[in-house]
């Protein structure tokens, strides 16, 4: 299919729900990542505090763009206001506050990267407003990856205890992040690919993820479930993913959502009563 779409009103009927679900999961995940970054004003260095706040601001900026697309669904009559999901759809790994700076860096690397890889799969998307947005988002995300990389090395090289702690923080969120990148058997994914809305399937997204993480983990001396092929130089995932119970609208196994402390902070966001139509 070679059609291109300038607004959500032009999207084929069968593509609307999958596209809406994807925009919402991105908006909510970006929003909550911004909130989590912003909770770390007490980072272990002044420069790191400034970076945390700056990255939080970027994430809110990106969330604003994706909530803007959700608003389009209402404006164009593709969704009634009351049909907008009442449940927050953040990536599972952000349900709770980071317990340590190592958790922060693990999310800075894995979660932020996964979101960026998903967004970059909209390069050449048939949804033209998305194509126009991603250049700016990618530009801002470059710094986030640099930040994660710098701290990954610093923590890994500080001491064995520090390196093991970092590994533990990464492994804690490893599977949910890989799940979030999508299930190749998902009907929604097939529709998004058929309509050209998304250009890479979820296996390609995971491969891309491993290609970025592999060299960084090797440089930092981290033991993660990935392996580099000595001959081809390719990085391969050594994790079996089970999709039982995975929800394609939420992109996670558990639909419990953020904890009570987080809900108290996000208030009107968890029912999407603020962003849509505001």
């Amino acid at each position, binding site marked *: 299919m070679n059609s291109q779409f300038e607004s959500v009103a032009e999207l084929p009927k069968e593509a609307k729900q999958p596209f809406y679900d994807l925009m919402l999961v991105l908006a909510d995940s970006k929003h909550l990542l911004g909130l989590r970054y912003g909770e770390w004003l007490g980072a272990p260095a002044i420069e790191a505090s400034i970076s945390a706040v700056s990255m939080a601001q970027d994430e809110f*900026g990106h969330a604003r763009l994706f909530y803007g697309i959700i608003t389009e669904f209402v404006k164009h009559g593709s969704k009634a206001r009351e049909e907008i999901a009442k449940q927050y759809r953040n990536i599972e790994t952000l349900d709770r506050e980071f317990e340590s700076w190592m958790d922060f860096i693990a999310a800075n690397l894995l979660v932020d990267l996964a979101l960026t890889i998903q967004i970059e799969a909209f390069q050449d998307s048939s949804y033209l407003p998305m194509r*126009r947005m991603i*250049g*700016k988002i990618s530009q*801002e995300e470059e710094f986030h990856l640099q930040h994660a990389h710098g701290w990954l090395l610093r923590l890994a090289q500080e001491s064995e205890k520090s390196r093991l702690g970092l590994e533990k923080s990464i492994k804690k969120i490893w599977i949910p992040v890989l799940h979030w990148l999508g299930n190749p058997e998902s009907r929604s994914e097939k529709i998004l690919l058929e309509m050209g809305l998304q250009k890479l399937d979820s296996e390609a997204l995971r491969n891309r993820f491993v290609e970025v993480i592999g060299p960084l983990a090797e440089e930092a001396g981290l033991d993660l479930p990935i392996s580099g092929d000595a001959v081809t130089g390719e990085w391969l995932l050594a994790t079996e993913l089970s999709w039982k119970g995975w929800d394609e609208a939420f992109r996670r196994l558990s639909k419990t959502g953020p904890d009570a402390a987080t809900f108290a902070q996000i208030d009107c966001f968890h029912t999407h009563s603020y962003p849509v139509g505001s």
Partner: protein
Amino acid sequence: MSVATEVCTEDRVWQALKDVNDPEMPISLVDMGMVYAIQIKNSTVKIQLGPTSTACPALDFIREDIEKRLQQENIERVEVEWVWDPPWTNDRISEEGKFILTTWGVSV
């Protein structure tokens, strides 16, 4: 000085926007390279602006400042569209803008 009968031209709008400063920088939106295009159609002025960041907190201020300045030119119908392609970068700042920023101690 604005004249009520003066014809609304793109040049005139560009000139007027040179008086509207970025709320966070001591130079105009034009020198910041944020003004991507100006179109006049059916007496409506459409302005495409590229924000410096996705999280720019001043979008509403900028829109209001533009509307106020163009009202002085008797231009009442203004539509501001935020555009992201091509992404705004420092390279879009004019030479004059860069000079002014350096005099304020901002490196570009």
